[in-house]
């Protein structure tokens, strides 16, 4: 298996289209996950899962969107399969790589989905807090407006009294 991993690793530049789009750390993360899957074997679900989760977390931390990550994974999946078909004469080797790539694809999608729903839950909770704050702010705004109106009325009355005291009342 290690020999196969090395042979797939050799395909890195071709799969990541380095000559076309330049070195892409983003997609490289996913490619590394496929290599890990080949190293660990698709039976070691936990090991691959951790690798994929790491990749997803890093990409999202860099500011990539989940949709972008999903698109990258699909792009890489397609290119890897094409590269393997071209590079490997042995059909068994091809099938091993296809299995690993598909396994990584499912895990990555699951990680993205879980991340998305967790984010949505957080966002919903934050929105609730915002709405509670808005209610308090609205109360405060109402009260301030009320006090301003009272003060303006007082000032107007005082101005009227002052005019009366000075004998400046209009006749």
């Amino acid at each position, binding site marked *: 298996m290690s020999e196969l991993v090395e042979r797939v690793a050799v395909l890195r530049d071709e799969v990541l289209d380095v000559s076309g789009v330049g070195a892409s750390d983003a997609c490289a993360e996913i490619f590394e996950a496929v290599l890990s899957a080949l190293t660990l074997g698709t039976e070691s679900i936990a090991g691959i899962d951790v690798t994929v989760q790491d990749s997803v977390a890093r990409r999202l931390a860099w500011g990539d969107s989940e949709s972008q990550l999903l698109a990258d*994974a699909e792009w890489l*999946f397609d290119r890897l*399969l094409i590269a393997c*078909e071209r590079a490997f004469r042995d059909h068994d080797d091809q*099938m091993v790589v*296809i299995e690993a790539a598909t396994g990584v694809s499912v895990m990555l999608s*699951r990680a993205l989905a879980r991340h998305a729903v967790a*984010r949505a839950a957080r966002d919903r909770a934050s929105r609730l807090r915002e709405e509670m704050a808005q209610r308090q702010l609205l109360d405060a705004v109402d009260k301030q407006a009320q006090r301003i109106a009272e*003060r303006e009325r007082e000032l107007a009355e005082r101005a009227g009294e002052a005019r009366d005291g000075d004998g400046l009342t209009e006749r």
Partner: protein
Amino acid sequence: MSRGAIVIEAAGSTDVGKVRAGNEDSLLVDLDLGLYGVFDGMGGAKAGEVASQTARDAVLAYVTANADQLPPMDLVENSLLHACAAVFDAARADRSLHGMGTTAVVCFVPEVHRPRSAVIAHVGDSRAYLWRQGRMSQLTRDHTIVAELLSRGMISVEDAENHPYKNVLSRNLGAKFEAAVDVVAIDLRAGDRLLLCSDGLFGFASNEGIQYLLGSGDAAADVARDLIELALRGGGGDNITTLVIEAGAAPASNTQVVRTTGAASWWQEQPRFVAAARAQGLGRSPLCRGLPPEEAIELVAGSFCEALFHDLEKSTGVNVWTFAQNLGAGWLDHGGDWSVLRAVLDTLHAAAVEVVDAIRVEERRLASLLDIAVARALIVAELAVGNLLADRLRGVERELVFLHAVAAAAEPHGESGRLPFSDDPTIPFLRSKRGVSTVGLDGGLDGGLDGEEGTTARAVREVLTIARAAVPSDALLVQRSIAALEAIAVHGEDPPAVIAEARELYGMRTLDDVGLQPLFEALERVRLLFTAAVHQTRHPEATKARALRLVSTCHQRLVATVTGLLLDAVAPATERLRDAQRTTAQLRAELERLERRRAELERAALGPGAFAPVAPHGEDTVPVVWDTPPPEDPR
């Protein structure tokens, strides 16, 4: 006729049926004597008719003569024995009447008995039933060959139904000089109903139908006629005779109260209902626009009130359903808004509550029953309107699918080869923003492929079949996922098909871990299944590799599309949070502006150089205003 505490009412009816030429049944109703009977004659020509009439006359004569001298049970039994002898003698006396006979079921309700009891005697297969508190029981056992065999356990119920001697009597009046008579006595209770009938009724009407009519609460004469109508509708293959004996009126059931008093009370309050609907602002509803207010109110509130009245009377919901359907269809057809319809239903509900509350003041129990009936009617109305909406939604979906097909035909593959969305019916109605690149074989698995592609297509089919066979029958989600995978492989060149399958698979799952985990586990299980299945096939390695690649690609597209849909579905949560944050920021800015304005006013009120503190954000502290300058710090 009054019989002590319990008033006995009785009425009978008889009909020749739809097949027989003459009516051989006879009926006996003597309210004064308390004697009732049904006789079903048999024999050639007019013999059957003669037999039943002879028996009836003999029973009546015997009971009239001996009513005060014998105990009721002996009296009734002897009357039938007397009738048997009379029929037998008549048959012997006239050669044309030879072999005639009759069944008989007789009920005697003696006046002197307290509490009231009824004695029932019978010979043959005419029956007596007792209806008591909603349940009907048969008081007599048929004297037929089959019934005898059945009671001795010699044949089964199924055998009895198809037995060639099903209708052959084991006993009757007139075949011999004497006949064994079965006699039974029961205590009557208020509300009981006894039914005496010939086999023309129960042979052509269901027990459920008979029970329903007996419990309908209608007058005895009406029930007797309705029972005959029931048997006629069931075929009317024999003479039909029914006799209903009613032992006083039963306490009215809740249903009867609503059907009678409730309906009447509701109808009396019609002006109040219309006035309440008017006061609730029904006339201002956009639904009533275009008509004079009074006419519109009458049209909506008046029609609803009348529909509900008819439904209360009949214990149905048909009229309110029809009203709501007509109202809703008219409004929606003119482009009306659902919320307006909803508001009108709420208005009608509020008006109905007002009417029921008015009834409650005088009749508390009735109002409670009406509460339920009105709530039920409004639920029916909402269901009717909901049904309309569902119909319209389906129509819209059909139109969208049609438009989509037209667009696809005009531009089968646009610049990107992607179509804007797919509109197969599903819930939730997610539209993927994410495109799907084509997968699979050109023309799909069903494309009639030759050569290498044809071999691959066959291998893919085999793989999916093996995978499907390995799924336990209760793993529905896995089965569904394989079906989706197959659909994508078949229609791989059609991206909307992929989206449609993903959307159907996602279905009504909740947008949380509980919703998505089982789905992804099923998808992973499918991956393992088809991977194993590829290795189980006997194709060359090259074909296996191509098949695995194709299925894996379809699987990847399916999983990615499901994930894409999920990302689309949760995206609004973030957008709404941003909106909320913007609103909060605006409110904070507004508050700061007001605080500044208030501080200016405070300063103006105190005069030049005065000090007025500003209340912190969100606190309603009253600013401290000093008449004199603040004290100096002693330090």
